């Protein structure tokens, strides 16, 4: 059961790291290639869905290691806070650069900060992972797997629902738009 539990924590985390790694590379390449100057080479907002993998992993970890949390919280505090701060700044910068800024010509410093706010959480995540793993090893406590069957069932049901959009996402992205159907809007003039 512990193997299953740690698979459910580490596999989504690994997927998140791959996805976030891609975002990180894109943010660095924008700077290096100068693509930021014409507002191109960015990750579509729908990519934010991958961040749900981080929340999922963290919540499963937190709730199944609840008896260890009082011991883990002090050592987690700094790396988790750094991740939190960096991800919040990243989100704010993302919204500013790709939605809140009417010109692609945001200062290079802003793009540099955006790239930095990808690297910082990766480093902090590695740091946090190492110290937490060391502490769990020292504590000799076992995680709570009592309700793991409910968590697994929920995961299977969710994946069953998500398999259709997941399979269609890539092909939908590549398809060309259809012609819109004609409108029957008539603008009725009513007195204001």
């Amino acid at each position, binding site marked *: 059961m512990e193997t299953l539990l740690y698979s459910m924590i580490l596999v989504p985390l690994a997927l998140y790291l791959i996805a976030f790694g891609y975002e990180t590379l894109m943010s660095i390449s924008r700077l290096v290639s100068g693509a930021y100057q014409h507002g191109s080479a960015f990750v579509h*907002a*729908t990519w*934010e*869905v991958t*961040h*749900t993998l*981080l*929340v999922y992993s*963290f*919540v*499963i970890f*937190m*709730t199944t290691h*609840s*008896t260890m*949390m*009082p011991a*883990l*919280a*002090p050592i*987690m*505090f700094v790396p*988790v*806070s750094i991740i*939190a*701060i960096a*991800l*919040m*700044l990243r989100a*704010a910068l*993302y*919204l*500013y650069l790709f939605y*809140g*800024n*009417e010109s692609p010509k945001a200062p290079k410093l802003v793009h540099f900060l955006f790239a930095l706010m990808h690297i910082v959480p990766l480093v902090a995540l590695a740091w946090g992972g190492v110290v937490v793993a060391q502490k769990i090893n020292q504590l000799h406590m076992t995680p*709570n797997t*009592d*309700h793991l069957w*409910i*968590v697994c069932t*929920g995961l299977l*049901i969710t994946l069953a629902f*998500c398999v259709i*959009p997941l399979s*269609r*996402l890539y092909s*939908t992205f590549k*398809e*060309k*738009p*259809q012609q819109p*159907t*004609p*409108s029957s*809007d008539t*603008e009725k003039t*009513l*007195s*204001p």
Partner: protein
Amino acid sequence: MEELNWGRALMSDSLGFHIIFALLSIGVPFVMSILELYAIRKKSEKVMQFVKLLARWTVVLAVAGVISGTIIAFQFAILWPHYIETVSPAVGIGFQLETYAFLLEAIFLAWYTLSWNKVSPFKHWLIGLPIFIGAAGSAVFITCVNAFMNSPTGIVVEGGKIISTNVVQALFSWTALFEVIHSVSGYLLCGVLAVGSFAAWRLWRSKTFSNTPVRIIGIMSYAALLLIGLTATIGHFSTQYLASNQPRKFAAIQLTTESYEKNAPYRILGEVNANGDAEGGIVIPGLLSFMVGNSFDAPVQGLKEWPRSEWPMLIINKIFEAKMAIVGLLSALVVATAFWFWRFKTVPKWLSRPFIIVGALGIIIVELGWMITEFGRQPYAVAGILKTADAFTKDNSALQLGIIFPILFLVLTVTTFSALVIVNRKWRKEYGVDW
């Protein structure tokens, strides 16, 4: 105590910001689905253009909502580890199931955004439904956890520790039912009011008259009327349930210090003096008993049945009265607008101008409601089991970085709403919308 109050302030600040993104992430997709179906049935290109704007809002709100939710999860772990230790055996499942609903919402949002004009309109509408279902689902599960905190059930407690649990009873209690229906209908109402508010704003700001924002205001006022009815009805039954299930919180909300066998009075704008007696304000004899038990003979427990140290923050009485005043104002405006649109198929300026503020009023009502329920449970984090002081981390250095979070949340909120303004501007330019 100072560190505890800092921790409380930090958590309530984070939750206060997060709830704005969360409720709009539920309400806006709900409105988006309604209007998209309307546009398909009426073959209205103008309304469909507006739906595209709402889709962009949903994406922007999702970006902010994902990160604010992530921060909340982090704060639970690093600031309130004893809370996590206490509740996880009973309702840790609720946190986990919330992430599944969240995943569902996010994936379908991605597909919905990318499949515009690439699938049939009806199929596109179907793809959009799970966005709202997933968002509402995550709210349902986390509200169930909150209901457990307010009224723990399905557990056996020994020595302050939960030693056995029935997860289904713990998560899906009567308290959860009332909280979920009342809060989710409130979030839907906020989404409806936010959209109506935006249309009213654009109607005021545009140089040429357009019927589209008038239609949107009208439809939103109908939807708001239904949702106000639902929220108020469940709010009434919820209050009756609260009086029996959480009498300490109820007594604080109503500022009832004495217990009554019958004919408990309803007091508005009262105060509690140094002796712990409620005084002043407007007193309506018997009304509180009637509201609680549908009879003037219904008993009501007063705060004096508990030691003073166990009294919740009495400010929740003032928050409740402010909330009810705003609800009254909002309801009057919505009823008037809905009636006028139904009767005359238009919305006059003297209604459409005030309608601009309904979006903000809805959000304020939700914030005040959550303050009432959270402050009203104090000094407990889990009622009767775990005090907030005991739930907090013992690591005092935890607060040294804390001040950064309110600042960052403010930055995120300002950036999000600025992004929404720019998105609106770009949308009007792209579709040649003149309102």
